[in-house]
């Protein structure tokens, strides 16, 4: 039904795809890369706050609304592991932490979660990257790592 060349083409195509799929699993295991978890929702996610769990672990609960994030500025010591929870009170917003591969959607009624480690001091800008109305381009927040507490 297929000549040798055609068969080779299809085998090559399958092999290349298998390689990509292998890479996904490799990244899942070795690099512990992941995507947003599916968490049961409750009202507590709608209160913006920073919580310290222990010396090196923090949790930041972000609440997005037209057109700001709360908390607008959070202070975190260098080397902490931070759980980020993001929800929205009105429309859909985006949540992108500069330089950190954190990329979540803030959706009303749902809570997106990811964990990120801050090993370098600096100001990490967060921008909204989903169109959320006419003030969308103003929507920003900051995570300040290792700056002296005010």
């Amino acid at each position: 039904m297929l000549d040798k060349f055609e068969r080779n083409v299809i085998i090559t195509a399958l092999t290349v795809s298998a390689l990509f799929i292998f890479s996904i699993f490799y990244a899942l295991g070795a690099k512990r890369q992941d995507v947003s978890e599916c968490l049961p929702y409750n009202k507590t996610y709608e209160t913006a706050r920073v919580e310290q769990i222990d010396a090196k672990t923090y949790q930041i609960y972000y609440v997005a609304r037209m057109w700001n994030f709360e908390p607008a500025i959070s202070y975190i010591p260098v080397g902490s592991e931070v759980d980020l929870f993001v929800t929205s009170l009105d429309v859909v917003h985006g949540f992108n932490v500069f330089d950190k591969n954190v990329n979540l959607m803030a959706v009303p009624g749902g809570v997106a979660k990811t964990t990120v480690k801050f090993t370098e001091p600096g100001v990490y800008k967060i921008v909204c990257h989903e169109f959320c109305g006419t003030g969308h381009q103003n929507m920003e927040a900051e995570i300040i790592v290792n700056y002296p507490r005010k």
Partner: protein
Amino acid sequence: MQVSRPIRNILLIELFVPILLLTLGIYHGLMQVIYRSGVIQRTSVAGLDYYQGLTLHGVINAIVLTTFFAVAFGHATMIFYTKREPNKTATLVSMLLMVIGTGLAAAAILAGKASVLYTFYPPLKAHPAFYIGTAMLIVGSWIPYFDWVRMYLSWKREHPQESTPVAVIGTLVNFTIWFVCTLAVAYEVLVMLVPWSLGWTQEINIMLARTLFWFFGHALVYFWLLPSYIMFYTMLPKLAGGKLYSGNAGRIAFFIFLILSIPIGVHHQFGDPSIGRGVKLTQSILTFGVAIPSFITAFTIAASLEYAARKRGATGLWSWIWKLPFFRKDVYLFGYLINGLILFIFGGLTGLVNASYSLNNVVHNTSFIPGHFHLTVGGPVFLAILGMSIYMLSQLTGKRIYAPVLNTIVPYLWTVGVLIFSAGLMYGGLIGEPRRTNMGLTYLNPSSEQFNPYWVVSSMLGLAGGGIMFTAGLLYFISFFGTCFRRRSAEPVIDLPVSETLHEERRVPLLDSFKPWLAIMGLIIFLTYAPAISDAINNTNRKAPPYKPTDPVPVVRQ
């Protein structure tokens, strides 16, 4: 072959209306790169707001143009290959629904009452006319599908032993994907959004709306792409002066598209809450599966082109490439298709980046995404549409092409523009430049405290490439509308270039039957989307009332 006058006129309207609107779509493409690069630091120019322009650009270029063209081209392939005409009333009703629907949606956007971007994005609310218009456009495009199935079955009865032509399989596969995937968005629009936007219902489940949208939203890109694939398989080898290396490879590719185009939409929702990781991983893997037909196509077409070049006397391992008819005015379609293929090499590879479970975190919703999809939608899809539109226009009117030199260089100029534009956007995306944002107001406005110098170079590259793309668009419009106003010099016909296959091919029953593939399609969609939809319904705690894009307070019923 000859086509009856009413059908011919309907096809001409289906080519003319979207290209006319495209002038607006391309204008807003140019405006966006200007706003984004900070050259303009305003919310609106000439009464049209940035986000309104973005909505126009997206809806016209990605939905109106592509849907109209797919229907017109589908008619042409079905008429040409089955030697039958579609039902006149059905074709007329379909065209009217599409034109009126488009008019309604365009009016709502132009009035500034539907700046919700082409992805709808509830709970941002548009005027009901926007949703109803879009639904009419979609429903209008369903009608020819059923008519073509009738034409195909009647052809089949007369030719029981013959293999179905690749173009017919491609067209039917494409509209099957389209029909199935638009069922979800029709549900979203008609059952959820319209009553809600009219104020009859108070709140909707946003995660469910998003999930239904992406059920359609990713399959949509294959709906755009498959007409180009049909041209790659059935026309490109002939235009190059050769033969198609393998027709069966084409059939396999189309059937893989049929079963895998839809159950992969969740890869747009990796950052979304409420949907489980298992569903996300499964759909990510299937997304890699749908790259397989593209690999097969790349190899088959490259082999066919090499064969054509060697037939023209080329030798050498690579130098055969220069024997292809790149700048010949008489085979200008070759230029459109080959440039589309070149762009698609980059478009496909960057698409695999988006689809990757973990790499997606780096690029999701950054300008990398428009950088990527301008290499696909703005590449093979758009170029095939432009080339074939002017080709069909010239044939159906019997008029010679106006300014054929311009028409021949358009795809090359466009390709240079897209490569610069997309390189800029993708580079910007890797350093966090957000998409869908009027950056001229803040991030690229030196007098704003949000000014971000990282994105200056990338958005300037976007501006340069966008400017070249706009110029190519202008040249095309001169050629297209110039042709409309010429005098008739030949009989109106539909004649598509037909590539013979290189080898005599026996009929393979599995590759000439829709039933088994349709069954697999249904099964995979059920297995992948039942958990996704159930997650979206069960893990979303509260529903959302409608919001106007201009106002942080929800719209309440008066």
